[in-house]
């Protein structure tokens, strides 16, 4: 096999590998909703002009775009026909963002109450250095009160466009991809 044909074969195989990898990534299964219990709830994002209500029964495959800062009006209950407890019952809950090998709980609540529902407002502001318009985030909300255990999973994404961080990442990919190809050059021989 001549040197030129070996070079072409290597480049072709590398491109093929990357293409197959990309195909696998794009073909990731959407998955069904994973929820526990019969909790109901919704969060309203007033600054959005359309699709501004995120409900607990929303399918995970439908991405909800969230602004980088907002004051959310929320309301939730253990079930649609839940009745108040006779006495105070301890409760705890939280919301987490799922990462590849771990998760980050960014909001928690807890205490004792006879109530089975709650509503209010929650303000958040995502730092400006966090790039918008990125891939999806899997956000899980959970709540435990007495014997009742609820979990709701929604898929959200930051509204916006990829900023300079995306360009830097793309440039790094190209540079280090070239480094991988350079690792395939023979020792002591200039390519």
């Amino acid at each position, binding site marked *: 096999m001549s040197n030129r044909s070996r070079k072409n074969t290597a480049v072709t195989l590398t491109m093929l590998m990357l293409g197959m990898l990309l195909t696998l990534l794009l073909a990731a299964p959407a998955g069904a909703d994973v929820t526990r219990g019969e909790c109901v709830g919704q969060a309203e994002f007033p600054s959005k002009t359309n699709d501004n209500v995120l409900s607990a029964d929303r399918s995970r495959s439908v991405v909800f775009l969230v602004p980088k800062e907002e004051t959310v009006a929320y309301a939730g209950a253990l079930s649609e026909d839940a009745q108040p407890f006779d006495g105070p019952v301890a409760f705890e809950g939280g919301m987490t963002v799922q990462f590849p090998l771990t998760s980050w709980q960014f909001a928690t609540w807890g205490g004792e109450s006879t109530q089975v529902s709650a509503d209010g407002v929650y303000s958040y502001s995502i730092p400006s250095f966090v790039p918008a318009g*990125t891939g999806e985030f899997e956000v899980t909300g959970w709540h435990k009160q007495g014997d009742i255990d609820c979990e709701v999973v929604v898929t959200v994404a930051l509204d916006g466009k990829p900023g300079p961080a995306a360009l830097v990442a793309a440039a790094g990919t190209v540079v280090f991809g070239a480094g991988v190809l350079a690792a395939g*050059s023979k020792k002591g*021989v200039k390519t």
Partner: protein
Amino acid sequence: MKGRPILGVITGFLFGLFLGVTLFLYGVIPLSSDMLWILPLLGILLGLIMAAWAPFGRSAEPVPPQATFTAASGGGTADITGDIPVETTDEDEEATAEATDEDDPSADDEIPEEPDEKADEETDEETAEESTTE
């Protein structure tokens, strides 16, 4: 390995890492995707494969079988008799010739001593004849 495995491991890891981040930032994969940690491992594997395969660059020129060191003969110099062109100048050739005369005893052996002795004998005979004639 014929290539550069260390370079392959380092750049492969970073390539996979940056590829995963790029795919996430452009919305191709979600943040919870396992590909974000699988890709750097695949990158390391790709770098090692490239280093082992080493498809780029020319192969080193094969050493001609004639080019052998003549250390066994005590010379300590390379006797290159292949087709490799060697540019030499007149000064180099003279220096080589002088070194050969000084170092190589066989060079002195090639010079016959008998002609000198004969020449001396002839000179002596001529001198004797001249004196006899006188």
